[in-house]
């Protein structure tokens, strides 16, 4: 090897063949998913139209769509969605702040996590519905209790994943960082936090799902509006198509939320996609 300015030769470019096959497989998978959902809706329609089940209990899909349209026209639906989103949003936001904040503090300090992991496991086992009477006592009937329920339901996966994420840092990365003389704070912001982010964002997505789950329960037992109330109340008043509207809307909200959180996660952890 001769000695010149650049000692090491430039390797060949990383030009990978365009992954057309892989892309086609992804597109095909998406198409198959849409087809399966369509097939399910068609089955629903047929089962009801052909009266294979009681049509009162399961009205045809098209009837549910029509009912949804009517609800939307009266504006009732939008206010229900709005109040539900407000409750879920406030509770989830609170869970994010507390879960990530406290989680980072605990995860960063070994002694704190040794002390607090047992009580946290214990609290986590208390279902939000079981906590509702407690929230009622302290916060009264209304928005605050509803938010507290959503918070309680979604904070645990966020908190526990944040703690885990902080503790799963690759040992050689901390060694390398220490060899460059990082301060404790730099170790936290430049090594621990970025390597915890994928684990934290998984917890955030889980928490988002739980927020909607708990929201429905909270609205069914202690609210006079919202999607959860709409579902239970429609059943009570025998407006069964409206009940199914509420259920479908919840499913759509869940899908949208998960999609948005997944997009956010991919954006933050872009470096992982290249693996």
């Amino acid at each position, binding site marked *: *090897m001769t000695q010149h300015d*650049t000692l090491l030769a430039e390797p060949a470019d990383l030009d990978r063949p365009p992954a057309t096959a892989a892309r086609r497989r992804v597109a095909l998978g998406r198409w198959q998913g849409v087809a399966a959902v369509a097939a399910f809706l068609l089955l629903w329609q047929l089962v009801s139209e052909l009266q294979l089940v009681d049509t009162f209990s399961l009205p045809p899909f098209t009837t549910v769509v029509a009912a949804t349209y009517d609800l939307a026209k009266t504006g009732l639906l939008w206010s229900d969605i709005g109040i539900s989103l407000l409750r879920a949003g406030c509770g989830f936001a609170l869970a994010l702040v507390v879960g990530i904040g406290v989680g980072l503090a605990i995860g960063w300090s070994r002694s704190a996590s040794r002390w607090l992991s047992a009580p946290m496991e214990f609290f986590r086992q208390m279902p939000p519905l079981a906590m509702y009477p407690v929230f009622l006592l302290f916060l009264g009937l209304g928005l605050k209790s509803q938010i507290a329920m959503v918070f309680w339901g979604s904070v645990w996966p966020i908190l526990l994943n944040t703690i885990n994420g902080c503790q799963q840092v690759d040992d*050689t990365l901390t060694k*390398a960082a*220490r*060899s*460059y003389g990082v301060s404790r704070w730099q170790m936290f912001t430049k090594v621990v936090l970025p*390597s915890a*982010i994928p684990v934290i964002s998984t917890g955030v997505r889980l928490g988002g799902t739980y927020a909607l789950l708990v929201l429905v329960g909270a609205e069914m037992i202690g609210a006079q509006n919202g999607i959860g109330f709409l579902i239970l109340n429609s059943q009570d008043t025998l407006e069964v198509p409206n009940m199914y509207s509420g259920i479908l809307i919840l499913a759509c909200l869940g899908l949208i939320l998960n999609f948005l959180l997944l997009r956010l996660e991919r954006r933050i952890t872009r470096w992982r996609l*290249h693996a």
Partner: protein
Amino acid sequence: MSEPAAGAAPANTVPKLGIDRVCRTFAGVGKQGSATVALHNVSLDVRAGELVSIIGPSGCGKSTLLEIAGGLQEPTSGRVLVDGKATSGPGPERAIIFQSYALFPWRSVLRNVAFPLEVGKVPKAEREARAAEALRLVGLTKFQSHYPAQLSGGMRQRVAIARAFVRDPDILLMDEPFGALDAITRELLQEQLSALHLQQRKTVVFVTHSVSEAVRLSDRIVVLGIQPGRVVGSFTLPRDPGQVADLPQREREFSDIRDELWNLLLRHGNSPALHVKQPG
């Protein structure tokens, strides 16, 4: 005794890196667990510009010794000296290169290389310029905005080498740096390290478990034995100063040393049968 490499300090001045009677004991695990002596009374002086390999069977404490030299672990007793002054903890005059590269997967190649400067609060424009220069040195200029996961093992280790070079340390501590690479990449990087060492005049401590790698690269080879980890032999391999070494040629030239090394390693390996004639 070999002549010191051209440009290196004469033998009678203070060594660049001194390991002075270092012992390292690990407390036992559990009630009956007895303490393990990982290193016993290890002393080693490395002259400026010298490339010293540390070789030994697994469990001889060679990685522990390197981490102590790098300030990542404190010795139970003994001292680490840089330019004759006792040190504690890591310092910018030393850089460690790990077998597993230890690149930050969420940082681009350029930002990985700039990391040590960022820690030292060097302004952004300057640290990026210096990181780019270090990348040029290892021939990875085109890849500065790639992420580590997009690179091959050999390229990742070159990024790690660039990161080690970016603060222009005097001493490079390499912990089996090519151990995870395939044979061809390994050979290439050996050539490149050898050339880089010649050009940059760094003092290098190179931990390896490969006899042929040690013979090819080193000015001197120090052999560690096991239980406890201690120096059991030392070989000097003279080379023409200022000239790029032909590594396979060196391996042929020092084939007798290679054989002796093998014998020594076998005698001090961790097989109980081979353990019997271990000298006190």
